[in-house]
């Protein structure tokens, strides 16, 4: 992607931190700077309890930072009204969840069209746009299937179509392959790669090194601290976590393996800004 240099980043965090008000107060995210530019594909990795969910909620405007400044598309949204934040969620951010969050009583296309309700797309245009989004993920033929009639991979592709239907600036994926088998994970990773190559801005939170490997940038988070890794090649990421870890296992065993299988990992203070990770 070639972008004008002066273009506002999709995401800009300036000293953004989040503290759960106690008692006792817990600093889930220490003051963090992070810039994600248009067209970037960023993987965010970290064990449970690392502040990953907190970061996701902040990036997705589902929660407000307790300190710092958060901008999306150049709009300061950390302290914006709920009205503005909802508007940005509707039009600038597409969400993809680990558990898909498809409404089980509605067909694939009806699920996609749900995203158009709040973005206020004219009703007569909805069907066509939703069908085109489903076509984009290769599911036009299954538009009228219920989620129960779709495979896990297909469900997640419906969810991606739903996330893309309003043409957001940012696609925010939370463990998108967490409930998928290896084959479906591969397909979905390919789809994300294709979206990226077409210019989408992707932020993918994942345990899965295969998924993370497709990203241009990897950002690690641990104990509320972010540490940036340079652009990684797929073979670089292999020792990222326990080599024995199965991608299928990442929701269940990933965290433990991260903690215990990597005793040499530096603690937060040393890691901050140093990029001095053992596999860097």
């Amino acid at each position: 992607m070639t972008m004008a240099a002066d273009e506002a980043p999709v995401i800009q965090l300036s000293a953004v931190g989040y503290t759960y008000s106690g008692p006792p107060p817990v600093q889930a995210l220490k003051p963090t700077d992070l810039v994600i530019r248009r067209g970037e594909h960023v993987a965010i990795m970290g064990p449970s309890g690392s502040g990953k969910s907190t970061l996701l909620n902040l990036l997705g405007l589902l929660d407000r930072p307790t300190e710092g400044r958060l901008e999306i598309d150049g709009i300061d949204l950390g302290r914006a009204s709920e009205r503005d934040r909802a508007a940005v969620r509707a039009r600038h951010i597409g969400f993809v969840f680990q558990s898909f969050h498809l409404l089980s009583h509605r067909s694939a296309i009806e699920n996609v069209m749900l995203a158009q309700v709040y973005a206020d797309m004219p009703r007569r245009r909805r069907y066509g746009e939703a069908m085109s989004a489903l076509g984009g993920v290769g599911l036009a033929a299954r538009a009228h299937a219920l989620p129960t009639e779709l495979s896990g991979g297909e469900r997640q592709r419906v969810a991606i179509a739903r996330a893309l239907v309003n043409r957001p600036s940012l696609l925010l994926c939370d463990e998108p392959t967490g409930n998928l088998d290896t084959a479906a994970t591969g397909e979905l990773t390919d789809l994300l790669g294709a979206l990226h190559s077409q210019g989408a801005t992707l932020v993918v939170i994942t345990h899965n090194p295969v998924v993370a490997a497709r990203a241009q940038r990897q950002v690690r988070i641990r104990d509320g601290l972010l540490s940036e890794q340079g652009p990684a090649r797929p073979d670089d990421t292999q020792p990222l976590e326990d080599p024995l870890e199965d991608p299928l296992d990442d929701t269940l065993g990933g965290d433990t393996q991260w903690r215990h299988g990597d005793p040499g990992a530096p603690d937060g203070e040393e890691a901050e800004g140093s990029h001095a990770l053992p596999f860097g």
Partner: protein
Amino acid sequence: MRSRSASHRAAGRRGRAVTSASRFRLADLASEAMAGLLQRPGRSALTVLGTIAGIGGFVAIVALSQTAAGQIGKDFNVQDATQVTVNDTGARGGSAHPTMDFPMDADALADRIRGVVAAGVWWQVQAGGLQVSALPPSAGGTKIGLPVTAASPGALVASGAQLSAGVLFNQFHEATAQNVAVLGKSAAAQLGISSLVNEPAVFIGGQPFTVVGILSGDPRLPQLNLGVTVPESTALKLWGLPPSYVPAQMLIHTRLGAAQVVAEQAAVALRPDDPKLLTATAPVNQAQLKKSVTASLNTVFLALAGVALIIGAVGIANTTLVAVLERSGEIGLRRALGARPRHIAIQFLAESTALGLFGGLVGACIGVLVAIAVTIAEHWTALLDDRIVLAAPLAGAVIGLLAGLYPALRASAIEPADALRR
């Protein structure tokens, strides 16, 4: 991958000022609420049962009390409400001999009762009537059988008799037992007498009577119009006491609302020595009857309908609350897709309101059907205020709206981040 449009879709959007607010159109609200209800049709149907029972009960009860009240009102008129009849029980229950238990000054005694406008004694002279002709028997005039009524001047006044010609006979004629007669409208026509210019006479049982007046309207005593009326004293002199099988009666015209009190006092006022000889009948107390009908219906059944309605409201509230808890994932998703808390709240409010509206509609239909069924069974005329029928679904909607307030508030307070993690 055929992601033709995704390239410009997710890419290259310059930072804008905050975009226009996310919206939730009315059409979308309606279809989302409908989808929410139809997602679990069985549960929705069961939920509205309480509302159906409550609204249906209200409509049926209101319709039935209106019908019953109307039934009373249909029979109600001022003429009946101001009329008291005093019967001679002594004559009726006594011997075969003619008797007369009304005192001679009955009119004056009755006039003293507070609330009496006019009163008088009357009776049928002979059950079969008498031969009446317009010409003397010697002249061979055609004789017609007509009912002859003996009446005091007070009775004529109390009967509300209107004249087309002449006057009513008065106390003078009564006191002196004059041979005077008042012709009823149809009797005058039969006898060919339409004017009093030539001072016409009629012959009743051969006795000559001067016609002093001709009636025009419908008096309270229909027989006055059909026949000939003569003073009480004249009848006594010529034909004797009234026969025991058609004894004398007193007709009292009262002021509006006084009939009950007059009836209570009449027997004692007329025969203080032996009030049991007379018995007074007043019209049914309409106001009291109306009140008692509605009261008995209202207290019991309105309470039951109210209980059903409360149960209905609690049912809607409960179901909506369960739906909110069950659908927290959906709520989180909608928030992530740009719904504002108020959009979430209004969706659940719309669902509960739709449940209430549906219950109100069905309840109103069932209530009307029940009311009509009872009306048919009782041979009444169905009377129903259409405003009640129109208001019932509205009342159901309001109940649904109120029942949905708390669940909707709970739904809008759900944190999307927590809800999505489930």
